[in-house]
């Protein structure tokens, strides 16, 4: 078996503490993923990646760094990967999804900070995640207040660039985001030493669009009455897409989509006919946050869509590939990214429109709207989401959770009752 200890040591990681994280992973993967029957064979790629999640990809990134390439760590789907790739840089997602990292985050942040932020800061400062050690530069954004303040702390430990995300979506905001992207491009050029040309940006726009199309193909299959993949497996694919090489990611997702399409034509479903279909909306589910999906899918329902940044918001809307100057391309990027409907914006009615559309497209029986504890933005939007859905006669369950296991029983009770109500 490959021994990654030397690599982790060279990254300055706290090996002893990290080993305890490695110890709990196999049981969780077994319970959540391997316990399922009739999984698509093409999940083997993601099974491999998650089995060696702190080994395979970190090793690849380090090898690329040795060739002089720079790795940029990001925390939000507003940061355009295309710009980094155009300068021969590599992007890796950095959002922390494990309770394991929370205490180290709480050592410097208020307890009343959302777990995603606490885990992200804890993973860096606790030196227990290779990705957080490898990234040469972090790219933050001015989305929510908790993140803005956390970036100030992280910025003391690692080179940091902050992108100023607008709070509204007027024409002038789209122009402002375009300017912010242009400034980011300059920063990336300076940091990598590589020029971004219109040709290179055109190519990276194409690469990321192909990745989006491949993810969309998998989601298209989830719209089928005959459900060829569980929500848990689709979530794993999505979570790892934030870390993977974009070309390989597209290839693997297309391979999976091929199998899912074949399953649909052969009538192969992972759930019995009539299983209630759930759309999950709300705050992102960073790896290895699998709690909600696992509870829903072991309570007699199936997750068929995630309206969240680790879901449809990551791949819907393509960047216009027809532009030939950098100025036009930056505008095309801004236009695409500003279509992402995050609760950090006001108003954010586009999110409700999206949920209503997806309820129809994915043939949804009920919506679960869940935010991470202390995320007041998504918590507040629950009111308008639930009102809009109830007006349309769509059952909604509003929940709040964090990364601990302690509320699992309570979640099981509430989700179980919701599914029972849908079945009545």
């Amino acid at each position: 078996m490959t021994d990654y200890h030397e690599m982790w040591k060279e990254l300055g990681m706290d090996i002893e503490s990290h080993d305890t994280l490695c110890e709990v992973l196999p049981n969780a993967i077994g319970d959540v993923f391997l316990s399922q029957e009739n999984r698509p064979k093409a999940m083997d790629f993601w099974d491999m990646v998650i089995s060696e999640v702190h080994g395979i990809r970190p090793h690849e990134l380090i090898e690329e760094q040795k060739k002089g390439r720079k790795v940029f760590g990001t925390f939000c789907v507003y940061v355009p990967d295309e710009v980094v790739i155009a300068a021969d840089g590599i992007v890796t997602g950095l959002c922390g999804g494990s309770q394991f990292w929370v205490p180290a985050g709480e050592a410097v942040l208020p307890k009343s900070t959302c777990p995603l932020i606490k885990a992200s800061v804890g993973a860096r400062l606790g030196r227990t995640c290779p990705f957080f050690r490898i990234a040469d530069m972090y790219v933050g954004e001015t989305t929510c207040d908790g993140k803005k303040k956390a970036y100030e702390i992280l910025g003391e430990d690692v080179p940091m660039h902050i992108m100023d995300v607008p709070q509204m979506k007027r024409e002038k905001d789209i122009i402002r985001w375009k300017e912010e992207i242009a400034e980011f491009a300059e920063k990336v050029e300076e940091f990598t030493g590589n020029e971004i040309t219109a040709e290179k940006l055109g190519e990276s726009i194409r690469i990321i669009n192909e990745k989006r199309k491949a993810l969309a193909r998998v989601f298209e299959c989830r719209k089928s009455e005959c459900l060829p993949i569980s929500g848990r497996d689709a979530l794993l694919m999505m979570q790892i897409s934030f870390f993977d090489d974009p070309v390989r990611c597209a290839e693997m997702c297309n391979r999976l989509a091929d199998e899912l399409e074949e399953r649909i034509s052969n009538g192969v479903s992972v759930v019995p006919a009539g299983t209630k279909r759930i759309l999950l909306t709300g705050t992102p589910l960073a790896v290895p946050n699998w709690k909600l999906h696992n509870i829903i899918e072991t309570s007699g329902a199936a997750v068929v869509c995630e309206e969240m940044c680790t879901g449809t918001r990551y791949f819907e809307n393509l960047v216009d590939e027809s532009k030939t100057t950098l100025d036009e391309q930056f505008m095309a990027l801004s236009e695409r990214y500003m279509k992402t409907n995050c609760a950090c914006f006001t108003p954010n009615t586009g999110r409700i429109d999206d949920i209503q559309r997806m309820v129809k497209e994915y043939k949804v029986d009920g919506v679960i709207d869940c935010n991470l504890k202390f995320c007041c933005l998504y918590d507040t939007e629950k009111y308008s989401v639930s009102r809009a859905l109830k007006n349309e006669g769509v059952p909604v369950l509003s929940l709040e959770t964090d990364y601990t296991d302690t509320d699992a029983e309570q979640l099981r009770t509430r989700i179980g009752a919701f599914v029972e109500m849908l079945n009545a």
Partner: protein
Amino acid sequence: MPEVMRHYILVDNNEQGMKLHRILDEDGVENRIAPVPQSIQGEYPCGMSVMIGDGLLDKAVASIGRHGAEYYKIVSVEVPFMPNRDRYC
């Protein structure tokens, strides 16, 4: 929950593991990529293995022999998966 026996074929690296996985697939031996279980991780945390269910060990060994496939060792473990355990990471 009844104790379930699973067999984990440990490998030297992930390339070897994926090769073995493909060979078993070709021979129709149902298998999945799985992390090495915690109880046998030893000094190598964060590693993949090829997992096969109870009753398939003989078929797997025959297939490996036929193809001269390489692996490190086979370990059998009684660990039931418990989807309702609610122990996440």
